[in-house]
């Protein structure tokens, strides 16, 4: 996986790697607390001004995605207009909901780890960052620490979801470690 770290460095310079690692740390924290492991941070003037991890299980609110938590934290100190010069680093491509929210908040740029084949709103399913809208488009760049982001999700989805009304037994699941072919993700909801 050191390959990927260096590719992260190449793609965006050392500070991108640093920020993405902080997002991954938030994802780890989510995993530890039984949340879908998606983490993110907001960077304004080279400082981390907000960080978030999924909180849907604890809050019983399916809309409490990492992005919203981070924005909420930032808005406690900064005016909304600061978001226009803020970048988001998130481990998984923002979902349709978050992609639209980021557009409404006029985020400057979004960096993400792996794509989101089930809910992705910045290219996978919809392209809400660039579709016509009331708000200006924002650029996205995926693939930063791609493998680390995927492994976080895999480690989560081999677990059973005892919060669901009908938990599905997953006794026979194994943690896959291969990255040779394009892996189809389970259903992350960042």
């Amino acid at each position, binding site marked *: 996986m050191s390959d990927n770290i260096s590719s992260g460095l190449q793609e965006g310079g050392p500070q991108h790697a640093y920020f993405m690692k902080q997002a991954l740390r938030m994802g780890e924290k989510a995993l530890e607390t039984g949340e879908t492991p998606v983490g993110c941070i907001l960077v304004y003037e080279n400082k981390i001004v907000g960080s978030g991890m999924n*909180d*849907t299980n*604890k*809050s*019983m*609110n*399916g*809309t*409490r995605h990492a992005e*919203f938590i981070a*924005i*909420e934290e930032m*808005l406690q100190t900064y*005016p*909304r*207009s600061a978001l*226009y010069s803020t970048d988001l680093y998130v481990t998984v491509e923002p*979902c*349709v*909901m*978050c992609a*639209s*929210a980021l557009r*409404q*908040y*006029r985020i400057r740029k979004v960096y993400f780890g792996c794509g989101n084949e*089930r*809910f992705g*709103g910045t290219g996978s*399913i*919809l392209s*809400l960052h660039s*579709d*016509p*809208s*009331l*708000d200006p488009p924002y650029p996205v760049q995926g693939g930063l620490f791609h493998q680390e982001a995927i492994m976080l999700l895999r480690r989560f989805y081999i677990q059973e979801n005892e*919060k*669901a*009304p009908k938990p599905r037994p997953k006794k026979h699941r194994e943690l896959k470690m291969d990255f040779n072919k394009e892996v189809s993700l389970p*259903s992350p*909801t960042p």
Partner: protein
Amino acid sequence: MDAEEILRGIKPLVGEVTAIRTVQETCPCEDYADAYVTEVNVKCASKVIKVLDSSFPRDSAQPLSHLRRFAKHNQVPEYLRPVLLREGSSPAQTIFVLISPPLPDIDSLQNVLSPFAPPGTPAGDQLAFHTVRVPLQPPLTTIQADAWSQTMWPVVFNPSAPRAMIAPPPQILSRARDFIQPKAGRYLALAQRVAEEAEQSGLGRGVGAVVVDPDLEAQFDDEETDNHWSDAVVAVAGDGRYSRAAVSEPGPNPASQTYNPDHEGGPELHALMRVVELISSKRREDRPGSSSTGRPCLNHLETYFLSQSDVTCSDDDSEDPSPVPEKYQKTETSSHAIHKHPEPAEDDTPTTARIRPRSQGGYLCTDLDVYLTHEPCICCCMGLLLSRFRAVIYPRSGRMVSGGLASEPVVKPVPVEEETSATENQDPKTDDTQHQREYYGLHWRKELNWRALGFEFVEETEAETETKEATETVAFHA
């Protein structure tokens, strides 16, 4: 005004609940590909299928089960007859088999199928493979099936199986529609009252949400509707997008005159997101110390529905003909943390929480219906899917250019008096001509894991109000 009075004074909107078509229906992707047809011995038909399936595995992502694998002589489409029907070949002896994509190469097909050549084929003669176009998606209607069967290859229409991805099963959709229709006008009128409050408070735009539990609704019968219609309302919320800023003068917020992102708060302050959070806060009440997100102060009606349940906690439940019943449970919020434990009401049905906590199986907004004054923004549309609402209903007059549910422009009926003007009648006029917008139809998209039933409420008076709405509206995210 007293909130109970407000509820009694609610005048239901009059109109029809109509299902929003899915984008799969409004923009059907008609994908076609080439396939081969060849003539084989009719007696070997089952062997042909066996050998084809074992030699050339099918793509499970594209089962193509709507394509007939064989066509008898009389089933061959008209246009193929001159090509396929040879002189001397008889329906008793031969049949035509379809080799569907992904197409194997001709040589391996020859090898596999040559043992089943039509009777009387001289040894060493090659089978002839004719190329035909076939539809890759199953037909949506019998009309489409018939058209394809005539112009391409015989297809089978299966009314149930493949549709789930494309549209809700018709019987589920129509049952839900019939269930929603009788009271939708009241809930939407209540949503409008909630919206008015939000606007007048200066804390938000005039957008409102009402969440109803269909299970509770089913518990009282039709005669009780007039008094008990609001019994099934589990929560209401208005827009609160200006609530983060310093409280302005009472009355509509001047920021609502325009769309300025600096003042728009954020989607988590939209009516849908706020009502979801109210319900969630109730669900997680049984777990102390769970995260309680900062919520703006509550409006009059929001508070009423909450504080009304505080009243039910007292024993004073005798003669008050309140439209809000005892069993209504308060939804605790950060600003309403006082928690009295309800005394069980003796002369009433057992108290069950309208919003069941997590410990009683309450999960997100599963199986609830949400009534909105406006078509929700894309963010809120996905929010309602992630919250697992059963259905979403908004008035057609509340469509937004920024909305995420509509799947096609409204086709306006052409007024009778204009019928003489031929040019006007050529194209159906659409509602959204002045505003270009996207039609996402997010409620039911095959790509997304979660889906909800989507309905528009078409008011009887729509024709009159329409023009007014169109000129007055500021484009924003509802």
